[in-house]
């Protein structure tokens, strides 16, 4: 594996994995604590419509995908605020419609196009330099925004009513968060695929949540954990010649199972130790 590091594509893959982990660690934490996982899934799937639109109308790729993703994201976010009780139904509908729209538009576009498989599982081994720079920029923007508004997002996530009473503009911050999420999701799907983006957004923060004493620690630990899963998964896929995206997911899922097992076993071990000492 070490020899492979000489190759640029491998260096790019590792860099992309690192940046994806950083972005997912921060955004994933906010997604999990605000309980908007389903919304994130909706944005990710619906954004395929943007790819279809870009190909069909000949728009620049990023303009089409990010633009459409933002549109879908804002619409879904507005629904969660205005009609909360129907929001997951509507997200489900947009999820499917966006995806179907993208597929049909690509069917109708003449010539060879990006196929669905690489959208689903990404192509981490064929990441161009331009994508790396873009992810770096997105990561930098996210770090700046989340740092600047850290205490506001903390309050908004924990107790939205109290934050509102304090004068925090909760609606604007919520839409800003959704916008950052939409952009992150589009960038990361390019690299690691649709299936992986949700796993990377949710599994590491979920594992790390109960051990974190602060939101920022949760973000840092999630990023580190994502990176560990990503590099381990890539290593397995290299050694055993497997799809890299799927390998990363399986490593993450395995990590998830181990964390659940540790949760169950540790209280039992301490109980048994106490009993033995009492004897």
């Amino acid at each position, binding site marked *: 594996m070490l020899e492979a590091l000489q190759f640029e594509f491998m260096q790019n893959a590792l860099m992309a994995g690192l940046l994806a982990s950083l972005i997912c660690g921060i955004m994933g934490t906010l997604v999990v604590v605000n309980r908007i996982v389903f919304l994130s899934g909706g944005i990710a799937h619906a954004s395929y419509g943007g790819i279809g639109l870009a190909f069909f109308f000949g728009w620049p790729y990023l303009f089409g995908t990010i633009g459409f993703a933002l549109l879908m994201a804002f619409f879904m976010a507005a629904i969660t605020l205005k009609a909360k009780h129907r929001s997951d139904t509507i997200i489900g509908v947009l999820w499917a419609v966006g995806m179907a729209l993208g597929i049909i538009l690509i069917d109708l576009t003449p010539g060879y196009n990006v196929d669905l498989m690489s959208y689903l599982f990404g192509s981490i081994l064929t990441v161009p330099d331009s994508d790396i720079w873009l992810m770096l920029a997105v990561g930098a923007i996210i770090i700046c925004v989340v740092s600047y508004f850290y*205490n506001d997002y903390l309050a908004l*996530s924990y107790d939205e*009513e109290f934050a509102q009473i*304090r004068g*925090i503009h909760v609606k604007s911050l919520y839409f800003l968060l959704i916008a950052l999420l939409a952009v992150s999701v589009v960038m990361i799907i390019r690299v690691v695929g649709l299936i992986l983006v949700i796993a990377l957004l949710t599994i590491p923060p979920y594992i790390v949540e109960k051990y974190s004493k602060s939101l920022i620690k949760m973000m840092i630990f999630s990023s580190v954990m994502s990176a560990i899963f990503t590099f381990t998964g890539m290593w397995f896929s290299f050694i055993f010649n497997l799809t890299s995206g799927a390998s990363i997911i399986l490593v993450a899922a395995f990590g998830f199972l181990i964390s659940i097992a540790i949760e169950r076993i540790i209280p039992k071990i301490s109980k048994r130790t106490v009993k033995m000492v009492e004897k």
Partner: protein
Amino acid sequence: MSLSIIEIRDLNFSYNRQPVLLDVNLDIKAGDFMAMIGPNGGGKTTLLKLMLGLLSADRGRIRVLGKPPNDVSHRIGYVPQDVHINKDFPVSVLDVVLMGKLKPGRGWSGHSRKDRIAALQALGKVEMTDFHNRRIGELSGGQIQRVFVARALVTEPELLFLDEPTASIDTKGQREFYTLLKELNQTITIIVVSHDLMVVSGYVKSVACVNQRLHYHGQAELTGEMIEFMYHCTAEEACPVELIAHGLPHRVLHTHRDD
């Protein structure tokens, strides 16, 4: 005559086309310590939220500190009823209290040393200083309730709204709690939503009975009539022991008709 710190005129609010509050009128003077009692679903929490600007009325006018609620909500300390929100949230007790120090437009600055000291002092008032570094989820319901009170106090409010603040606290704890409120009342106007008739009798200065409509009583003594109106039961049906409150002077509620 002192100005009203809260002024409500012809307030109407409905939820899903069901009326929750009808033609509510209220005048609260600075320094009042008012209990809001009434049955579940009667509109008590809704009225608090309207005064905080969290909800908008269908009709009518609310003025708090002479202004619309949204302009002055940061001058009100709010202790919500639900202590079980987000129990697994990665946040320490101190960080929850520090949320009271937030204001819009803070920018890059985190919480200053002054903020942290103020937060620890607020925790001291509710005897929770030792817990400042614990995760919020490790605390019991009653302890979280106290942390929420500290969070409201750290905002240095002119008004304090508490929604069922002693729901998770035992009787001794309740007495201590209301003694603290009485002390705070020297500088802060307080409104407490409560199901607890003991509270009403022993500590507060006035009572508002809320059941879609609002009736304000300047004196803290509950009459049998009030209870019948509010709870749709006669004074005889409600247990007499529950209605006798302890406090100086001893307040005894309306005697039973057949005595």
